[in-house]
Each structure stands twice: as C-alpha cells, then as structure tokens.
C-alpha cells in the first residue's frame, strides 16, 4: 500500500514537473524540480502519516521518494548539459563523419548555449564588451574551489575568486 502510494505520487510529481516545463520553458529547471518535488513530498508525508502514523513504512516512503527525486534531477541535468548526451543524440539521424559531427556540434554552439544559460540563470551579466560575475556565481566558484580541493581534483587555472580567497587567507 505505502509503496503503491509512493509510486503514484512520484509519477504525478514527474508529470506536473513536465507540464510546468512546457508551460514555462524558460524557467530554471532546478527551481521547477525542487518546487514540484517539495510539494509532492509534503503531500506524501500527509497521506502516509494519516494512514500509518510515523511507522517504518512512512519513513521508507519518504526516503524512497527523496532518492528517486534526486535521481530524476540528476538525470535531467545530465540530459540537458552533458556533452556526451549531445553527441549521442546528434548521431540518431544516422552515421556521420567526425568532420560532419564537428560542424553540427561546434564549440561555438557549445559556448553560445552555455553563455545564454548562465545569463538566463543569473550567473553572468553582460558588462561592456565582456561579462561580469554575479554574487551567485562567486558563491558557486568559491564552493567549486573548496570542493575541488577536498576531492583532490587537478587544480585548474587560478581564478579571481581563488586569488581573492588566497589573499584573504594569507
């Protein structure tokens, strides 16, 4: 019973996220997923607690939904932004030479879509002949540098934020 309810709520949440995406395609997908998923999760809490109280089944339903929803966000982000997915999808029309594929999937296109997305989502603002970082993107870059150092990834070229952080640290 609890499992069936969880599956139904999950499917309804996915359907509502897809519907909102079609109605407002320019909106931020993460906000859309978090809002629809949060509402669905709250509904699930209400239903499960009303049926079985705070039982192990209720906990299982809530944790399972949260995991499935996080997986959905991951998959959606993967489909939207992954270069590998872009290459795979472009080959659906049939075999292509590497030169053809490079023409169809130019680095110029990659840069353009990324810049558009970063401006639309509030990470960049056009300033003069270039761009400027917003407070949001500085927070993201700082978090990225911290995580990158924790996970011991190969350090990339130093950025202004990284230099700023080092200046304050020294």
């Amino acid at each position, binding site marked *: 019973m609890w499992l069936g309810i969880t599956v139904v709520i999950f499917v309804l949440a996915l359907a509502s996220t*897809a519907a909102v995406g079609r109605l407002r395609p320019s909106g931020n997908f993460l906000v859309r997923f978090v809002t629809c998923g949060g509402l669905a999760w709250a509904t699930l809490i209400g239903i499960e607690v009303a049926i079985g109280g705070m039982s192990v089944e209720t906990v299982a339903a809530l944790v399972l939904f949260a995991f499935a929803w996080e997986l959905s966000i991951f998959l959606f982000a993967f489909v939207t932004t992954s270069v590998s*997915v872009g290459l795979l999808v472009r080959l659906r029309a049939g075999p*292509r030479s590497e030169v053809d594929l*490079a023409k169809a999937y130019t680095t110029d296109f990659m*840069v353009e879509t*990324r810049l558009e997305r970063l401006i639309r989502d509030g990470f960049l603002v056009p300033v003069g002949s270039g761009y400027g970082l917003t407070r949001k993107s500085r927070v993201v870059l700082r978090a990225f540098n911290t995580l990158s150092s924790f996970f011991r990834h190969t350090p990339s070229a130093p950025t202004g934020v990284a230099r700023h952080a080092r200046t304050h640290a020294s």
Partner: protein
Amino acid sequence: MAWVALTLVYVLLHFLCYALVLRHQPRFTRERVIFAYHASSELGWALVLPIGGILGVWTNEGLAAWIAAVALHGIYSLTFLTLWSLASGGYSIGILAQIDAVGHGQAVERADLELIGSDKKDARLRGVQALGLIRSRDGYLEHTHRGAWAASVLASIAGVFAVRESG
C-alpha cells in the same frame, strides 16, 4: 527502524574513510574508482543487511526497512558523486572561471572559451567510444546497438521534459 539507524552510522563511516584516508590516494581521483567505491558499497550493504538479520547479528526487519536503508545509502552516494563530478569542473564552471580570471567587464577571448569546449568534446567523444556507445566504421561514427538504445532513452527524457537542446 534499526536498519535505518545502522545505515546512517555506516554511511558516516564510509564517508570518514574517504575523507581521512582514501582521498589522499591518487587512484581515488579517478572517476571509475570513485564510482566503484560507492556502487560496491551500495550493493554490498543491500546484501549485508538481510544476511546480518538472518544470522542474528542484528534484528531482522522487513521490506520497508530494507528499502529505506538502500534508498538512504542511495541519497548519500548520489549526492557525493554529483558533488565529486561538479568539482571536477564542468564546462559552465570553466567559462565562469575564465571570465573571472580576465576581470569584471573585460572582453574575454572567445577562442579560450571554445578551447575548453573543444577539449571537453574530444574527451567526451573518446569517453562514449570507450563505453561502447559509439563506434567508428569506414571513417564514419555511428551508434552501437547499446548506443542507439541509450540515445533513444535520453531523447525520450528530453522530449517528455521539453528540453530544446542537449549538450
């Protein structure tokens, strides 16, 4: 609820093991190794819990507790792997870093941004070939059977959620 509590303790130990010891080892900076570290733990824990229950190491709980425990581990692993992947530097992060490096409002060299994209594209093309999703035949790139299936699934997801362009 004992299995849920046990899982919380287990994932905390799993994380501490990585944070204190394993992250200092060079091979744990490789994607396959870090993925295997989590996938083997998730699968192993899903087996250890009921076996421990049957052997009387801890109380035997039902399907709901097992699903809760496995999903809890799943949340931990997925969050960890997502952060790990983000920290390895996506294309968008590369662009932000490049713009930050040249300074506020300064013209950014388009060629530098395209170079990040070009490196990424080449690396990903090699990656999907290594995974057996694309093969090269007579100078042409085409899907393998598995690749065609994967591309259909991904295109369906993009279709359902009205994604205009991927990649």
